[in-house]
């Protein structure tokens, strides 16, 4: 072979070509084709019909509005919980710490439907807290608080999981420095901790938001599927589809798909920032072995 060594990586062998073809076919069949067909179907009767399907059906309008309320609420709860929990785990050693960290992962391993049922068992009218909630006239299951709870549950690991490794990598020294300089707890958090974790936090928030918008299983169980009341966008997509109103269903689906694409773009951008920051962190840790032109004046 007379080619340069790096040409080996461009895989022109039959096996290499086969693998590339396989990967392209899989991505095309499983990701690109379905996503494209969503948009094609959504706009099959023209943009006007698409717009009317979204804006002129009150149940659909409500579903969009509900999703845009429930998801941010769940993400907000997640953010507050995630930051506090990550700080606790990254900065303190206490008995049960590793158990706690594994508990954060439960929502990922439990089927969302099971999670929804569990919430019904606790907050439902016959549930553990049922009598109390009835007495207080608070409705959780078959109402929006249940949707928020279910969505929060399934997205719970996303923010905290994102933050723990980053906070551990950064270490407590900057926070200690801030304290020694007279900062109080809030000042340390807003001026030192938050700026240091902002990209990781945003990454977690974007992922959690995408997951919250698209959540179906857990929300399906706790919502009771009441059109115009507890239907979120994914539930609305399914209901319209069942009613053979495919174009309308696809119109809503296209909004979800567009959100997903937006998430993807945001994710790529944030990941670049994260990479830059972790490189900076490395550089800051490296001993400043480079020559220091300004120390010269100190010796005299």
């Amino acid at each position, binding site marked *: 072979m007379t080619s340069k060594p790096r040409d080996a990586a461009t895989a022109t062998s039959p096996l290499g070509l086969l693998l590339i073809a396989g990967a392209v076919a899989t991505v095309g069949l499983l990701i690109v084709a379905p996503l494209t067909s969503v948009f094609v179907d959504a706009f099959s009767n023209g943009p006007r019909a698409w717009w009317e399907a979204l804006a002129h059906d009150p149940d659909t309008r409500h579903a969009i509005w509900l999703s845009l309320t429930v998801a941010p609420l769940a993400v907000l709860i997640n953010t507050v919980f995630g930051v506090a929990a990550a700080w606790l785990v990254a900065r303190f050693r206490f008995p049960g710490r590793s158990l706690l960290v594994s508990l954060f992962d439960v929502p990922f391993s439990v089927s969302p439907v099971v999670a929804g049922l569990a919430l019904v068992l606790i907050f439902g009218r016959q549930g553990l807290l049922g009598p109390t909630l009835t007495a207080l006239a608070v409705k959780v299951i078959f109402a929006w608080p249940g949707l928020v709870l279910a969505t929060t549950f399934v997205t719970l690991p996303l923010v905290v999981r994102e933050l723990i490794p980053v906070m551990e990598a950064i270490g407590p020294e900057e926070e200690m420095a801030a304290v020694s300089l007279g900062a109080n707890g809030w000042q340390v958090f807003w001026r030192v901790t938050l700026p240091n974790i902002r990209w990781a936090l945003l990454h977690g928030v974007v992922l959690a938001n995408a997951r919250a918008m698209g959540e179906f299983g857990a929300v399906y169980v706790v919502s009771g599927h009441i059109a115009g009341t507890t239907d979120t966008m994914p539930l609305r997509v399914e209901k319209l589809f069942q009613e053979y109103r495919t174009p309308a269903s696809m119109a809503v689906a296209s909004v979800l798909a567009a959100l997903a694409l937006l998430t993807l773009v945001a994710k790529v951008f944030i990941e670049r920032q994260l990479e830059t920051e972790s490189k900076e962190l490395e550089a800051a840790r490296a001993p*400043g072995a480079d020559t220091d032109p*300004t120390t010269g004046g100190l*010796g005299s």
Partner: protein
Amino acid sequence: MSIRVDGVSKSFGAFKALDNVSLDVPQGTLLALLGPSGSGKTTLLRIIAGLEWPDSGRIEEDGTDITDRHARQRDVGFVFQHYALFRHMSVFENIAFGMRVRKAPQAEVKARVDELLHLVRLDNLGSRKPAQLSGGQRQRVALARALAIRPRILLLDEPFGALDAKVRVELRQWLRRLHDEIGMTTVFVTHDQEEAFELADDVVVMNEGHVEQRGKPDEVFDKPASPFVMDFLGNVNVYHGRVENGLAFWHGVPIHYPDYPHAQAREARVYLRPHELDIARAPSGSASEAHAGTSLAATVLRQTRTGPITRITCQPRQGGSDLHVDLPSAAARELGLQPGESVSITPRHVRVFLPDPEYVI
């Protein structure tokens, strides 16, 4: 402001990081905390600063108990082991931080930061980010940031640890002058003994969470209080020997040792520093005999020159581990010893430590 540490202990789980440490630092002293890695230096410094809480014991400033006082109210400036600069803030904002959180007026902040930038010779670098600075520059930003709040105590955790040798020497001389000008009580951690001896008024040697010795640099160097200190100060030849009747025996060579007048012989460890040994070419003929009872016969193995000092490594004639002798390089050249030559070695000064039940190797 003076500091008193009184019987402070601190454990992390089952591990005792500090064990009943007491320490007095009079106003205006520049004190060095010297000790191997893990001996509790950082922990002690953090407890003095209020960044870590002792399990027991007290901390006093000027005679006032401040054990329960928050770090904010302690008047302490802290320079961290790896600087811990706020990496998303500019150099200017790093230095300004302490005044900003105290809500100092903008004009005052600006004036003070400019003054400090000048003091640490970083006048034009205020807008840089820490990542864009060299190690020595970062170090000086960390120092300026700590000084900005006009602390009355300055604590520095291995301030020059990560710097190259030349920058390190310049910065520590500069720190000494700064300390003399401002007159703050200063404690700095190092595991470089040269740094401690050159810079400090007082040296404290720590080991496994307790203070081994406290004294003037000369005292600690000339009269190490324990085998640990002797070992830690390094470059020492250690031999097993014995003591009896006011004499210590090292390879059969008797050395005056009045501290042990008893007739009963005891095992002891004999410490000889390489620069406290005389070396001479053995008179030919009697080379195989130990020279007149006061010196040790040995064979030269090699010579290593490191700048002004030449180290001669010898093998004692009776066997045992190699012995190092340090000579000024000029003297070594004059002597002109060759590997394989016979020499006699005479200690000018030895230290003997009897086995101590507390010091188990």
